[in-house]
């Protein structure tokens, strides 16, 4: 670098703000630690590090919510297609700091919106120029991006084509970026980043394309990768003996990590869910329990070392991944104080484990119909039919897809259960709300051939689902202190957007456009509004100029309208869209 260039670089560094000298309105690591007690802001993806998605704001209550109406809307972009997708959609959670909102569209453009004075004004849009065809051809399940993270004067975001991008909060200019994932290998990124200490954590998508999954941490000062934890062990690593084939299935074992995790500062532990093994439906290709697929991982956040794991569906035959967010709750269970990690799994069961050691505490089905197993072992939480002596698990053999039994109906269907849309936890009532897909679907196994090399950037699924039956949904409430279901509000469509809890309500959206509020205790509907387009994203709440608002992104995206629409035929009429809705009282 010449002296002149060096001087220029130094000036640029000063302009964009160095890590050591943040301004007064910069977000600090300490603020993120206390995000749960900062009700007017929504500073991190799941509201707080514990992933509660609970706001204590109480201007909008069950008594006045009937007066909730549209305060303002803002049209966004990113509906164009690319790769195998005909359009993009919205799955993000808006982030709000001091009345300034940051949202993303499916192709990863970031929008900064000034919400002051009762209106929404777009201040800037950062378009990362995502390589649509490179990324869109290997995105299994839609053109999706779930939002940003804030730290210092930076807005951190991912692009589908595998980049981590830091944008200056004030100017909207890219400060730095790095390639984290490789679409040449079938890797893309849809998850929102998570900032912990001086790092930003990235999860990857691609278990349908034969990736070997990972979680990676990037240093915010050096912009270099600090650690990378593979979710599928390499030969010789712990867990490698759970891949018992002789054709190196581990190399393409899947285990993606496409939902943002949670963090417990008291134990310095990062909690992250791991996706399905690949190939999804040909379990005989990969005999063994296939660690760490379908597991919750607890990691040392400084090193990425695995502290413990808890696997939900060993040798998965169903695509029942465990990418769901881990909800960290301190509550008594049957009178005994516990540090819990809650997870609502694709396999239809909700789990509480002791987050200090990964020991099973309680589990229960949260869907109306489960057929793949008769239930969980009360001691271990393993599926009742799990046999450690078997290399290929059969569970309820009458419905489990296999090479000998290649066409079967499974309940829940392979989308779950519960998919990525986040749960919400009310810490005052100790009630956990799950956005449920009440479903069965048909799996057809098409065995993969171990003697043939895997084709890069091609599906590696060992079969696929079809939807011969109607699929509906529910909001299901669980009392965390007992592990019992205490309510179910059924919905005509599956829950594809996720939940927000307030002191006395639960908010949700439906793929037919409805946004609604339920009474937190009775789960009776108190208010609804139809946005006229598909809701595929979670609601959130914030204050601006001291007034409470509810915000939600609206625009059908994701996997549903390509792969699952036959289960909800009325939704075929829903058109692509891209709109931010913001609601308030009066």
């Amino acid at each position, binding site marked *: 670098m010449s002296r002149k260039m060096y001087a220029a670089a130094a000036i640029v560094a000063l302009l964009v703000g160095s890590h050591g000298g943040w301004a007064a309105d910069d977000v600090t690591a300490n603020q993120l630690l206390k995000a749960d007690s900062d009700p007017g802001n929504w500073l991190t993806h799941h509201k707080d590090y514990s992933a509660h998605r609970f706001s204590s704001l109480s201007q909008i209550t069950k008594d006045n919510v009937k007066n909730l109406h549209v305060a303002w809307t803002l049209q966004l972009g990113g509906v164009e297609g690319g790769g195998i997708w005909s359009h993009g959609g919205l799955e993000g959670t808006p982030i709000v700091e001091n009345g300034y909102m940051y949202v993303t569209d499916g192709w990863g453009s970031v929008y900064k919106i000034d919400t002051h004075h009762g209106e929404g004004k777009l201040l800037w849009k950062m378009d990362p120029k995502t*390589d649509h065809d490179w990324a869109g051809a290997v995105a299994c399940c839609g053109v999706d991006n779930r939002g940003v993270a804030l730290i210092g004067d930076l807005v951190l975001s991912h692009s589908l084509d595998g980049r981590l991008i830091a944008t200056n909060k004030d100017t909207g200019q890219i400060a730095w970026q790095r390639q984290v994932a490789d679409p*040449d290998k079938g890797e893309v990124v849809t998850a929102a980043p998570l900032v912990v200490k001086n790092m930003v954590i990235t999860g990857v998508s691609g278990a349908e394309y034969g990736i070997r999954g990972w979680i990676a941490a990037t240093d915010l000062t050096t912009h270099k990768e600090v650690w990378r*934890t593979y979710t599928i062990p390499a030969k010789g*690593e712990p867990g490698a003996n759970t891949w018992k084939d002789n054709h190196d299935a581990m190399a393409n074992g899947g285990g993606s990590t496409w939902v943002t995790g949670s963090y417990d500062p008291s134990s310095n532990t990062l909690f992250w869910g791991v996706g399905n093994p690949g190939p999804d439906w040909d379990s005989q290709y990969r005999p063994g329990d296939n660690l760490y697929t379908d597991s919750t991982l607890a990691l040392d956040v400084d090193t990425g070392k695995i502290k413990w794991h808890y696997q939900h569906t060993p040798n998965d035959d169903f695509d029942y991944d465990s990418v769901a967010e881990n909800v960290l709750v301190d509550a008594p269970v049957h009178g005994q104080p516990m540090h819990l990690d809650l997870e609502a799994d694709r396999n239809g069961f909700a789990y509480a484990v002791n987050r200090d050691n990964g020991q099973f505490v309680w589990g229960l089905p949260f869907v109306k119909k489960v057929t793949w197993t008769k239930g969980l072992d009360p001691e271990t939480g393993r599926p009742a039919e799990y046999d450690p002596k078997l290399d290929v698990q059969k569970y309820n053999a009458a419905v489990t897809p296999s090479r000998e039994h290649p066409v079967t109906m499974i309940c829940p269907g392979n989308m779950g259960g519960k998919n990525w849309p986040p749960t919400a936890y009310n810490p005052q009532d100790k009630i956990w709300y799950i956005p449920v897909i009440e479903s069965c679907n048909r799996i057809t196994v098409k065995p993969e051939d171990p003697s043939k090399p895997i084709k890069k950037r091609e599906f590696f699924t060992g*079969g696929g689902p079809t939807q*011969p039956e109607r699929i509906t949904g529910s909001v299901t409430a669980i009392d965390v202190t007992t592990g019992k279901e205490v309510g179910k509000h059924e919905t005509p469509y599956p829950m594809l957007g996720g939940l927000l809890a307030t002191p006395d309500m639960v908010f949700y959206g439906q793929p037919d456009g409805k946004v609604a509020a339920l009474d937190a205790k009775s789960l009776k509907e108190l208010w609804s509004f139809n946005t006229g387009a598909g809701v595929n994203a979670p609601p959130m709440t914030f204050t601006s100029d001291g007034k409470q608002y509810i915000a939600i992104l609206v625009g059908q995206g994701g*996997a549903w309208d390509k792969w699952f629409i036959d289960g909800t035929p009325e939704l075929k009429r829903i058109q692509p869209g891209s709109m931010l809705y913001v609601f308030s009282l009066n």
Partner: protein
Amino acid sequence: MAFPAMMLLGAFLLLNSVSAWAEPSADEGLHVFKSANCVGCHKWSGEGGGGYGGAAANLRRTALSLDQIEHTIRCGRPATGMPHFDPDAYSDGRCYGLKKAQMSAATMPPEPDHYLRPADIDAVAKYVVSHIKGKGPPTFAQCQAFFGDGTRACDVYEKTSDSSGAQAGASAGSAHQHLKIESAPDANAGK
């Protein structure tokens, strides 16, 4: 029964006369292949293959004639995910002698996002025959002809294609930004 048969003949003549009126260019066919989202299932190369929601036919290995391909695009394929791009495909028996009332939800081909004009169907069918059918494994040059050089979608073919394609890739590769991944070592390797 003569009347529907005459209508079918009429429709056939109409379609034929449209296609005979002006020969579509390969560019027109390529445009339709993209805009009608044939890529969504058959991929850019036409290889289709095993998919999350079922397998699409491999058009590179198809044995269908031009007429049969055109017929499949107009009518879709019953009991599969192949849509019918003629909006009236099942109105009068022109497709497989079937009408909508005779079809169940399971056998009725899906509606496409956008129906196609007869000239578009003609163009895309000819594109499949001239650029995809019988072409063997996809090459870097074919991929770049499809996408242009503003994307890295073809990079995966650079090393596996013939030498001329690889050379083209080396020069085209510099046209767009290649950020390298510098990943940390495996956090759980060793003790």
